[in-house]
């Protein structure tokens, strides 16, 4: 399920590693697929599983506390590296609906929002609190751009206005671009 008018209410999973790159989110050897479905099994694969495929019990997603959590709180500067949209596809397929960090890499943030995965940047203060309180109940309201966590955090977040509008109103950005085809034709004619 992707973001929309519904308020996301969940406990958090905290993965306090800084600069988590997209090769950790989904290793490149899983990119030979021509589909986008079913990538949740590859999410954080080499952190989640031993080389022989057994789950690593010390990894947070393999612990009972992570069950049913829709919101991932990551260490500073999340999702640097490659442009693979397989990263948000894997997070969504696994069940996450939002990720929170201090900074989120440009291409990932764009990819995430296009797929309805909220990628939120918060202040150091809010981030420190979330990192220190794994499992905290949070609510994320895209309509009012409001993030609440436990009794301690009640803040607003910024999100690219058009991406927000599209998610709230079910508008398809490709449809919007196609509606501008007359402008595109005019532009092309003007350059020729």
């Amino acid at each position: 399920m992707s973001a929309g008018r519904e308020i996301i209410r969940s406990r958090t999973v905290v993965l306090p590693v800084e600069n988590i790159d997209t090769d950790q989110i989904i290793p490149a050897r899983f990119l030979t697929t021509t589909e986008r479905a079913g990538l949740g099994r590859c999410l954080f694969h080499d952190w989640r599983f031993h080389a022989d495929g057994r789950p690593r019990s010390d990894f947070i997603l393999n612990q009972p506390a992570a069950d049913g959590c829709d919101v991932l709180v990551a260490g500073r500067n999340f999702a640097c590296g490659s442009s693979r949209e397989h990263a948000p596809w894997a997070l969504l397929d696994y069940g996450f609906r939002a990720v929170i960090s201090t900074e989120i890499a440009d291409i990932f943030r764009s990819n995430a929002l296009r797929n309805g995965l909220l990628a939120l940047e918060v202040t150091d203060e809010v981030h420190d609190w979330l990192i220190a309180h794994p499992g905290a109940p949070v609510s994320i309201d895209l309509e009012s751009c409001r993030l609440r966590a436990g009794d301690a955090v009640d803040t607003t977040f910024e999100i690219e206005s058009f991406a927000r509008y599209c998610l709230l109103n079910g508008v398809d950005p490709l449809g919007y671009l196609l509606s501008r085809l007359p402008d595109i034709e005019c532009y092309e004619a003007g350059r020729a």
Partner: protein
Amino acid sequence: MSEARDIGPRTLLEKIWRRHVVVPETADTPAVLYVDLHLVHEVTSPQAFSVLRRRGLPVRRPDRTLATVDHSIPTSPARWQGDRPTMDGEARVQVDTLGDNCAHFDIPLLGIGSRRRGIVHVIGPEQGASQPGMTIVCGDSHTTTHGAFGALAFGIGTTEVGHVLATQCLLQRRPRALAVNVSGSLAAGVTAKDLALAVIGRLGVGGGTGHVIEYRGAAIRALSMDERMTLCNMSIEAGARAGMVAPDDTTFEYLDGRPMSPKAAAWERAVRDWRTLCSDPGARFDREIEIDASTLEPQVTWGTDPGMVVAVGGRIPADGGARQREALSYMDLDAGQAIGGQPVDMVFIGSCTNARLSDLRQAASVLRGRKVAPGLRAVIVPGSQQVKAQAEAEGLHRVFLEAGAEWHESGCSLCIAMNGDRAAPGQYVVSTSNRNFEGRQGPGARTLLASPLTAAASAIAGAVADPRPLLERARRIA
């Protein structure tokens, strides 16, 4: 935007941006930005083509689209019989799917059998497709490479690949401009790769987020096009959206006569226009940093992101922090340890960062008449089939083979390790590629990023080594 701003001095970014605005940006909507060149490869395109097929949409401008296969295809000579590679299941399907899609949508494809095939960021420039002033996109973060030509070039996700296929446009907000001013000149044995790593070390892996870097200054003007491509290629590793260098005579000389470059009168017109593509004196950047190239030494990474870097003669920083401890635990290296002399199992010379002809010539200058250390595996993968042919015409492949290195077909290979080429768990690899992330070269593999000179010197030593003493000896003998 104020009137004064509208007529004031402009950055290169601003000039290129303004030329490509189809519908201006507002508070509510991003700009509709026109794309001049869309490069396509097998890994990030299939799901985008599926959307077009499902919605019954054509590719709007196949003539502005160019496809190749690079990520999934094998490079090992043992896996090629003539033009036919041995590929397993999904990789084969992926390559065939690109072929089907290009045939169906009438997109030019430099496919498996093509002598012009290669890594997408090597062939765009090689064919003269990447030109100054263009907007260039590809479903690959190292699209920043093409900024070397004074283009605005950046990576996009698969959904946006679909947008460009269907409309030749993207929805974008204008990024901020970051000037990296590089004074002085690079010393002998210090390369564009070392400069790129030093810049990332300064900015950090998130330091460029939201920005387009323009590399400026005397040291940049002195770089060849191959070197500018290496530098711009790594911009994404500082988190930057793109990197660019204003075009000049070096750029025009490179492009003159390439298959897709303008010809005759169109060439003259193009060069006149391209000469206007520079940041005006007094243009305001959102941020600037200064680097003196003369102070740089060859660089080597010691950690698990490209910002964790030291001079080859230096030591891994002593002060810890959780991120450094995690990185050193993965790398099985110690804080305070000298990076030089660290034993290595493998050397990889290749990738869109460092697999052009000049990179191979540099590697050969070190390897000529020498042997790769016993037990070390050295893999050399040219950036394109043309680079491979040129290298062979110069006899570079014989230098590599006589030194005991492997000489492969072109492709991404060990940079991303999704084609079967990979290092074993725990192995140390000195690599000329762009990412030292955990597992990037195979699960458990440990990557140390460096220049082709440093990689070649390390192959001979069997350990991380400064190439400069070998270069001096070569010069003395000459």
